[in-house]
C-alpha cells in the first residue's frame, strides 16, 4: 500500500493523454490555395490565366510531336519517342498526355466559367475574361478534333472527331458573342477564326470561308510562353538541346534549301528560318551514316547539342522560328484564314482567287509573290497532291513536285503553319501521300499514323469504350 502512494504518475499519464486527445492535428500548410478562397471578383483574372496555362501546357506539345510526325522537324536526338515518330509510329501510349491535358484545358475553362458566373453573376457574360475562357475552351476542343482519330466526352461512348468540332463551334460562338459584348476585338476575331477552323473540320467550307472573312490577315492569337513560366518546347529541344532539328526535312531539302544557306543562315522563305550549326558531309541516307560533324561556330554556347544532333549521328540544323523560350505559338491567325479561303478556291477550281489569297499570305510574311512557275502551275488546275520518296539525303531533293494548286497549297500551308502543330491534321484530311511513305520511313514500315489513338488510360477508366476496337485493337 505504501508503494502505491508513490505511483503518482497516473495523473501525469492522464494529463498527457488528455493533451494528446485534445490536440488538434489540423495543419494548414502554406502554399496551397483552397477552392473556396478563389471565389472573389479580384481573383477572376488569375483563374482565367490558370485556364490559359492549362492550354499553353499542351499546345507546344502538339507543335513538337506533331512536327516530328509530319517532317516539320526531324528527330535527331536520343529520345526514344522521337525515333519512333520519325518512322511515323504513334501508339496509344504515345497519346497519353495529349488527351488528358487537352481535355483538362477544356474542363478548366468550363470550371472557370462556372466560377465567373458564381462570382460575377450576370456581369460575367460581358467580360473579356469570359470571352477568353470560351476561346480557350474552343481551341482545346478544336485540337482534340484535329489530332485524335476518335473522341469521347464525359466518359461516354465513342464519337467521331467531328463531335469536337461541334463543341468548338459552340465555344467559339460564345467567344465571339461575349467578345462583342465586352468590346474585345481580339476575342471576336478569335471566335471567328476558331469557327473557320471548326467548320473546316466539319467540311462546311461555305461556313468556314464566311467566318474566315471576318478575320484580318494580320490578326494572330497565340498560346503564350515565357522563359520564367512555361517555356516553348520546340525552342527547348532545338536551342537548349539538339534533340530535334530541321536537318533532312522538306524545309532544308526543298522549301528553304540548305544548299542556299549563307553564313550558315537560311536565305530563302522567311517563314521557315533555320541555322546550320554543324556540317555533315555524308550523303548516304540513314542508317548508313558516318560520324564527323564539323562545327560551324554559329551556334556556340547556345545549347548542349549546338553542333550535332543529340543522337550523335547527324548535324544539327536549328529552327529559328522560335528563338526564345518565351516564343509564343500561334493558334489562330489571319494568314491561316487566307489559306482557308485559298483552299476553298482550289476546291472550286478558282485559280485567280487562289493566287491572290496565297500572295496575300506571302506578302504578309515578306516572302514575295508566287513565282511565274508557281502561277503557271496554279493555272494548270487543282491537280493532286504528290510526295516524292527521295532515295538519298541530298539537300536538294525535291520532296514535292509543284505542278498544281494542291501542291502549292500544300507547300504554303506547310511553311505558313510550320511548327504550329497543324500539319498532322492537314495530312489526315487530305489523305496525303506522305502517309504512305515519306523519306524517313524505313523498309517494311506500315502506313504512317495520321491521327492519335485514344490512350490506354481512357480505355482503362471508361467502361463505355473499353471493349471497342479502339481499345482492344
Amino acid at each position, binding site marked *: 500500500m505504501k*508503494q502505491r502512494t*508513490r*505511483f503518482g*504518475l497516473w495523473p501525469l*499519464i492522464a494529463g*498527457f*493523454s488528455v493533451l*494528446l486527445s485534445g*490536440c488538434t*492535428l*489540423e*495543419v494548414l*500548410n*502554406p502554399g*496551397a*490555395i*483552397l*477552392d473556396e478562397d*478563389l471565389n472573389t471578383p479580384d*481573383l477572376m483574372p*488569375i*483563374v482565367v*490565366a*490558370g*485556364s*490559359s*496555362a*492549362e492550354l499553353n501546357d499542351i499546345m507546344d506539345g502538339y507543335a513538337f510531336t506533331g512536327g516530328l510526325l509530319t517532317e516539320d522537324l526531324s528527330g535527331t536526338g*536520343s529520345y526514344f519517342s522521337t525515333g519512333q515518330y520519325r518512322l511515323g509510329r504513334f501508339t496509344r501510349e504515345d497519346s*497519353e498526355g495529349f*488527351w*488528358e491535358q487537352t*481535355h*483538362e484545358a477544356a*474542363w*478548366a475553362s468550363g*470550371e472557370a466559367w462556372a466560377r465567373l458566373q458564381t462570382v460575377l453573376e450576370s456581369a460575367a457574360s460581358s467580360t473579356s475574361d469570359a470571352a477568353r475562357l470560351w476561346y480557350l475552351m474552343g481551341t482545346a476542343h478544336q485540337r482534340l478534333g484535329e489530332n485524335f482519330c476518335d473522341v469521347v*466526352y*464525359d466518359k461516354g461512348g465513342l464519337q467521331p472527331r467531328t463531335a469536337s468540332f461541334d463543341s468548338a463551334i459552340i465555344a467559339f460562338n460564345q467567344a465571339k458573342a461575349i467578345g462583342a459584348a465586352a468590346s474585345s476585338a481580339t476575342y471576336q476575331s478569335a471566335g471567328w477564326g476558331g469557327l473557320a477552323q471548326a467548320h473546316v473540320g466539319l467540311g462546311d467550307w461555305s461556313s468556314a470561308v464566311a467566318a474566315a472573312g471576318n478575320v484580318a490577315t494580320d490578326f494572330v492569337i497565340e498560346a*503564350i510562353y*515565357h522563359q*520564367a*513560366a512555361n517555356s516553348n518546347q520546340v525552342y527547348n529541344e532545338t536551342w537548349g*538541346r539538339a534533340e530535334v532539328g530541321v536537318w533532312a526535312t522538306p524545309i532544308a531539302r526543298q522549301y528553304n534549301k540548305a544548299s542556299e544557306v549563307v553564313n550558315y543562315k537560311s536565305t530563302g522563305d522567311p517563314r521557315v528560318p533555320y541555322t546550320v550549326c554543324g556540317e555533315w558531309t555524308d550523303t548516304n541516307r540513314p*542508317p548508313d551514316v558516318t*560520324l564527323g560533324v564539323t*562545327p560551324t561556330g554559329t551556334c556556340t*554556347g*547556345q545549347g*548542349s*547539342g549546338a*553542333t550535332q544532333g*543529340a*543522337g*550523335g*549521328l547527324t548535324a544539327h540544323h536549328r529552327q529559328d522560328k522560335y528563338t526564345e523560350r*518565351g516564343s509564343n505559338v500561334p493558334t489562330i491567325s489571319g494568314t491561316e484564314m487566307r489559306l482557308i479561303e485559298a483552299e476553298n478556291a482550289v476546291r472550286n477550281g478558282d485559280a485567280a482567287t487562289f493566287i491572290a489569297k496565297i500572295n496575300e499570305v506571302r506578302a504578309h510574311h515578306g516572302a514575295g509573290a508566287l513565282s511565274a512557275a508557281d502561277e503557271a502551275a496554279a493555272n494548270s488546275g487543282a491537280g493532286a497532291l504528290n510526295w516524292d520518296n527521295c532515295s538519298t539525303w541530298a539537300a536538294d531533293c525535291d520532296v514535292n513536285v509543284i505542278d498544281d494548286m494542291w501542291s502549292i497549297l500544300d507547300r504554303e500551308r506547310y511553311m505558313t503553319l510550320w511548327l504550329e502543330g497543324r500539319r498532322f491534321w492537314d495530312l489526315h484530311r487530305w489523305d496525303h501521300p506522305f502517309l504512305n511513305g515519306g523519306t524517313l520511313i524505313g523498309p517494311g514500315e506500315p502506313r504512317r499514323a495520321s491521327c492519335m489513338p485514344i490512350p490506354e*488510360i481512357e480505355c*482503362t*477508366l471508361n467502361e463505355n469504350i473499353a471493349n471497342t476496337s479502339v481499345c482492344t485493337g
Partner: protein
Amino acid sequence: MMFDFKWKSAWRNTTGIAVVLALVGFGAAEIAAQNTGTVTGLVRDNSVQIPLSGAQMTVDGTPIGGLVNNQGRYLLLNVPAGEQTITAQIIGYGSQTLTVTVVSGETATVDFNLRQEALSLEGVIVTGTAGAARRKEIGNAISAVTAADIEVAAVTDFGDILQGRTAGVQINDHGGQVGSGSQIRIRGNNSLTQGNDPLIYIDGVRMENGQIGGSDEAAQEPNVFDMINPNDIDRIEIVKGPAATTLYGTEAAGGVIQIFTKRGSAGAPAWTLSVDQGTSIMPHAGPTGLGSTYDERYPDVGAAGGWLLPADEVINPFGLNLNDCSSPRAWAPSGEAGCPESGSWFAPGYKQDYNLSVRGGGETATYYVAGRFGKEIGTIQVPDGYDPQGADDMQVRGNIQFTPFDGLQVSLNNTYARRKITWIPNGNNASGLYLNVIRGPAGYTPGNDDSLVLENDINQTIDHIVTSASIGWTPNNMFSHRLNVGMDYTISDFVDFKAWGYYEEFQGDRESDTQTDRNLTLDYNGTFSYDLFAGVASNFSWGGQMYEEYGYVINGFDELFAGPGEQLLGNGNNPAVYEGRTTIRSGGFFAQETLGFGDRLFLTAGMRWDGFSTFGEGFGLAAYPKLSAAYTVSDEAWWFFPAIEIMKVRAAWGQSGKAPGAFDAKRIYEAISADEQVPGVIIGNLGNADLGPELSTEIETGFEASAFQGRVSVDFTWYNQTTNDALLGVQEAPSGGTEEATLRNLGETKNWGTELSLNLIPVTTENFEWSLGLNYSTNDSEVTDLGPLTGGSTVRTCPEVPEDEWCKTHDGYPLFFRWDDRIANPGVLGELPVKEKAYLGHLYPTSMIGASTRMTLARSLTFDVLFESQRGFVRPIGPAYQNVRRRQWPMCLPIADVWYNGDRSTLTSTQVGNCVGPYADWGYWTDDASFIKLRSATLSWRLPEGLVPGARTAQISLQGKNLWTYAPHYRGLDPEANDRRRSAMFEYYNAAPPRVFLANIQINF
C-alpha cells in the same frame, strides 16, 4: 534510457547478488583482511577483443562481485585466499567461469574472453516493444547488429553496417561518387505510392529517413543517416514488419530501425583513438583491351549463347573510354581532348578518418564524448584546377547519463555532424562526365573535350543535429516510466553553378537550394509489472507519442550573368524562386498487455490508435491491433532434445500503416506563373475527405534455436503481409475533365517471404575459433486488387520509379517491376525484331544471401569475410541502349558492322534488336542483375600489450570493401550503378561502387 535501467533491474532480480561496486580509483583500494587477496583482470569480446564494460563478475560461493568498468577491467577485493571460481557474464554473451588461486595479501590476475551468442533469450530488446522486453517474451523476429559486428567489418557508412548482415534487409548500395546515399528496404515493399523507407530512430528520436537535397546534375542523393558515425553506434535493432511495428503506428509499415549510440560507463576516462587511411579503386568499365571479346566477359550471352556476337570478334580496345582516354582512336588520333594527363578518368581515391572518443564517469554520472574528422576523395580523376569529387566529414557527440536519485535516470544525447560533398556532373545529364566520355564522339561536348563538363561546380553542405533527453523512472520493481523528447534537424545547402563562359550555358546559371527537415519527437510510455498468480506474470504497458515533421525548401535559380566570377542569385537576368513549407503532425496512444506463464510462454495483445494531419477530415483515428505469442519450449521439463538447449517458437499478427501525403485529402489549387509571367491558378488536387492510411496486416511465425552449447543457432521466420486500403492515385477517365488523380483507399497488395539466419561455430579452442554465418531471405509481392483499375490494364501509380514509361502497376504482378518491350520473335535469322510489351522482371531482389566467416587466432588475429548476393531482379542498362543507338557500344560494333556493311540476312532478330541503333530498345537492354559481391574482408591484429607505449590495447586492421563482383547476366557497368539511387531503378551512365581498401589503427588508452 529505459534500456539501461531495465537491464540493471533485471540483473538485480535474476541474480539476487549484493552488488559491490569497486570501480573508481583502483589505486585507492586496500586489502581489508589478512586472509584475503585481490583478483583483477580484463573482460573482453573473444573475437574482436572490445572491452565488455558492465559485465557482471561473481566469486562462486561468496557474496563478492562487481561490474566491469569502462576499460574492460574488473577488481574483486577481499577474496578469500585459496582456489576460487570466478564467473563473468553479460547479456548477449555466453558466460565464462575460470579458476584462480588467490594468495593472501596478493593480487591475482585472470582475463576473461566471452563469446558472443547468436541467440540470447535474456537479451533485452527495446524496439517494437512497450518499454523493453527480454527477447524470449517477443513474438516477432528481431535482428540486432552490435558494436562488435561493426568493429570487425569494412564499414564506411551506416548502410555498410546492415548490408548482408541481417536477413530480410536490402541495402540498395550507394554509387561510385563519394557521398551518394543508399536505399534501405526491410522485407521488400508493401506500399505502391507512399514509399517504403523504414522509420529510423536514433536514441529514441525519429530522424530523417530519406534523402536530403540531392543533385540532378550528379544524379545522386545523399542520406542523412549516412552521416551517423559508425564508431558511435553501440547497437542497432531492426523490426521488420507490421506485426512488430504496430506500436509505432502509422508510417511504420516499412519497418523500424533503432540506433543506440554508445554510453559512458563508470571508471576513469577510457580514450580510444582510431585512424583510417585508405584508397578506393574503380573497377574497369567495359572491355579490357585489344583482343578481348564480348564472349569472354559474357560467355552465356555472347557467341556461346549463339545470339549476340560472332565468335572471336575483336572489340573496341578502349573499353568505354573511361579507363583509357589517351590512346589514339579514329575520332581522336592524339587521344581525347580533355583527357587527364594520366590517360584515364579513374585514379585511386584517398580516404582518411580520425576518431577520438572518451568514456567514463562515476557511480551517478557517466559520459561518452566523441569526435570524428574524415576526408575522402573519390576515384574519378579531374584535371588540375578542378575540385576533386569527394566529401569532408565532421561529427561530434556528447552523451551524458546521470542518476539524481535511485530509480531515476536521465540521459542527454547530442550530436552534430557536417558533411560537405563535391559532386561531379554525371548520370542522366547531358552535361555529365560518364555520358560524354562513354559516348565517345557522339557526346555533347564541343570538340569532344569532356573535361569541360567539370566546370560545372556542384557542392552540397549538410548539417545535422540530433538532440534528445530521456528520463526513465522506476519507482519500484513493478512500475517504470520513460519519457523521450528530442529533435532531429537537418539543413542542406546545395549549389549548382555554371559560370559565365560555360560551354553549355554560355552566360552561366546558378541553382541554389536550401532544404530544412525538422523532426520533433515526444514519446512517453509506462509499464506495470505484476504477478497475477503463481507462475503468471502480467506486464501492462501504455503510452503516447507525438511527432511533428516540418520541411522547408527554398529553391533559387538565376542565369544570364553579365560576366565571370562566382555570381549569385540576383546577379543574372532571370531569377526565379520556389518556396515550400510542409508540416505533418501525428499523435497516438497504445496499450499492451503481456501475460507470462512460467517465464516461458508469453502472450501479448496490444492496440494503437493514431491521428494524422494528413488524414481526411471524415476519417478519424486509425486503429492498429496486434497479437503475439512466444514460447520457449526448451524451458519445459519435458523437453527431450538436450542437445538443443534453446528452442523458442513464436507467432505474431499485427497491423501498421502508411499515411497519405500532406495535401492529399484537400481540394487545392496551385499558384503558378502563367502566360507572360502573370499569376494563375490550376487545379492541384481534387481532395478526398475520407482519406485514411494504408493498412498493412502481417502474420509471421518462426522459431529460434540454439544447440551444442551455442555452437549452432538458427532463426527462421515466415511472413505474409496484406496491405488493404492501399492508396492509389485514381483518376476518372480523362474525358470527364481533369487528369488529376485523387488518392483513394482502394487497392490490395500482398508481400511475403522467408528469413533464415544460421550461425555455426565448427571449431572453437582456447586459441582458435572459426565461425560461419548465413543470412538468407526471400521476398515476393503481388498487386492483388486495383479497385476500379483492375482489369489487366497498366496504370501509373508508383512514384518511386519516376520514368513514366516504365512505371506500371498491374494486378497480378509485383509491386515494382519492369514493364517494357521484348523481342517477340527472338533469334529468327533474317528478320527484324518484333516488339511486344511484357513483364521483364522484378525491380527488387527476390532472394538475398549474406554469407560470412570469421576466424580468430590466439585472440589477436581476426579474419572476417562477408559475401552478399542479391538475386532475381532486373535493371535496364541505359549506357548500352543509348550507345547502341549511336553506334558506340563496343560490344555491338561487330553486329553493327554486318548490318551497315555486310549481309543483313545473316543477322538474327535478336542481334538486330540489341545492336542496330534504329531497332534497339530499352527492354532489350534490361538484364537479370543478379550478383554476388565480396562486400567486406577484414584482417585485424590486436597488438601485444606494451607494444604501443601508454596504450591499454591497440589493434591494426586491413579492410577491403566491394572487392569482387560476379554478375554473369548483366551487361552494364555494375548492377548497383543506379541513377538517383533512392528513386530510380536503372543504370544511366553512373559510377559503380568502387573497391575500397583501408588500413586502421585503433589505440585504447
